[in-house]
């Protein structure tokens, strides 16, 4: 009987998780469709919870208080930054451009639109990375052609009050 010779790397076998055959269900798609339609009239529609009064924007079919949000309310197009980051590569502190690949800076911010109780993720334009801060006031910037897509509301700019 041949002794087993201990190998540092043995054979490998392959396989996959064929998630292409999974198909998930989302009531939220139906809710957000209504909100997306309203984009065409430049309106932001959120859904208010009858249990605790929280307003979800974009809408969500259930609330953390276990009620089902059921009242459409209009959300303001101004909001406050609650969190942020930058893609591309900049040094921090001075935020110099010397590091990493070049490219247009993309500032990604979490925005709490006035009249809602939720965070929505957007990009921030017309501002430099070093100007961003938590608590900064921003204003939604609609695209030139509003198509009723979820990313129609993906851009904000500093609110000049």
């Amino acid at each position: 009987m041949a002794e087993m010779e201990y190998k540092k790397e043995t054979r490998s076998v392959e396989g996959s998780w064929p998630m292409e055959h999974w198909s998930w269900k989302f009531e939220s798609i139906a809710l957000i469709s209504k909100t997306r339609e309203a984009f065409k009239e430049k309106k932001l529609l959120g859904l208010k919870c009858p249990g605790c009064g929280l307003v979800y924007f974009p809408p969500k079919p259930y609330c953390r208080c276990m009620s089902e949000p059921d009242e459409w309310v209009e959300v303001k197009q101004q909001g406050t930054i609650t969190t942020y980051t930058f893609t591309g590569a900049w040094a921090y502190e001075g935020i110099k451009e010397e590091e990493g690949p070049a490219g247009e800076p993309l500032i990604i911010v979490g925005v709490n639109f006035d009249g809602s109780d939720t965070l929505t993720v957007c990009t921030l334009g017309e501002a430099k990375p070093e100007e961003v801060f938590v608590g900064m006031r921003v204003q939604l910037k609609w695209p030139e052609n509003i198509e009723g897509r979820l990313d129609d509301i993906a851009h904000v700019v500093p609110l000049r009050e």
Partner: protein
Amino acid sequence: MGPGIEVGQVPRAALPINPAFQWSVGNWMDHFYDGLKEGKLLASKCPGCARVYLPPRMICERCFTKCEEWVELPETGTVESYTVAHVKVGANGEFEELPQPEVIALVKQDGADTCVAARLQGGSASVGMKVKVVIDPEAESFVNMLAGYRPAE
């Protein structure tokens, strides 16, 4: 949903993404495949209770001992159970009719204490029937070098 909000048929979403994996088989299974390559059935044996594992295991489940002994098993074995498969599971997870039913058997190799699930050639099967292993060292994928079984007679 609350009043005024009709979801209708709940919408669905899917993505054509299939995460891939590459599992290292470990030295015990690797040695097993080395054996098949030479046409041999190699099983690991517990030095404590003498239990023989085919496919081999590094650890004896009953003694928690490393199975560092190897034994070469004869080509004969016994059908412990079998099923005549009329279907197989297709890539999408649903049953697909087989053009020809096939026999999947649980075979206990003579000298082994565990079973191998493999195809049994020859169409008919019975519990307790003697079978011989079919080894194909040239199989396209090494996992199929243990190609199956055929009736001993």
